[in-house]
């Protein structure tokens, strides 16, 4: 087993662990505002690691040019913050409760929804 295959294996395991970590955070954390951190940060990092592993595997070990993974990573890294922003805007709009330990709760009070 070559050194390149070892690197690919480590990157794949690291990526899968980070994806799992994001989902565990989604289940375990107490409120919506903390729950948003898991999928938008840990899962994106895990997917970036998987994409890097896939790029190394196809371009290094298989020896064929393959750039679609780069496109996937680029698209996800651009859209993940936009989605997180829209989700947190929807959460604030619906006035979801934050846990008592959350600081700066007055920010939630400033965004009362407009009367329909």
């Amino acid at each position: 087993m070559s050194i390149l295959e070892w690197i690919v294996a480590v990157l794949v395991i690291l990526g899968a662990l980070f994806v799992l970590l994001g989902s565990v955070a989604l289940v375990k954390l107490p409120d919506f505002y903390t729950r948003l951190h898991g999928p938008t940060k840990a899962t994106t990092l895990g997917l970036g690691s998987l994409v890097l592993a896939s790029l190394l595997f196809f371009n290094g070990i298989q020896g064929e040019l393959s750039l679609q993974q780069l496109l996937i990573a680029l698209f996800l890294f651009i859209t993940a913050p936009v989605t997180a922003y829209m989700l947190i805007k929807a959460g604030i709009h619906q006035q979801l409760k934050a846990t008592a330990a959350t600081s700066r709760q007055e920010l939630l009070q400033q965004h009362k929804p407009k009367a329909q």
Partner: protein
Amino acid sequence: MLHTVLIVAMLLIGLALLLNLLALLRGPSLPDRLLALYTMYINSIALLLCYGIYGASQLHFEAALLIAMLGFVSTVAVCKFMLRGDIIE
């Protein structure tokens, strides 16, 4: 060796998908459920990437790209609906 690692990774991602399903069924509010659904989209992309390396074929990556675009567009559309009560004004 790499095949064993990939199978373990796919098992981990499958476990993550099950946890997402739990969060999707449990989540008390609509943004919670939407977040769980978006995480499922991303995790299925990760699963497809692993399967692409496992089978040494690039056929699945276009499907993964399609899933990424659909996940983004549908999540933003539902968010827009929750914010404004309308998608295209």
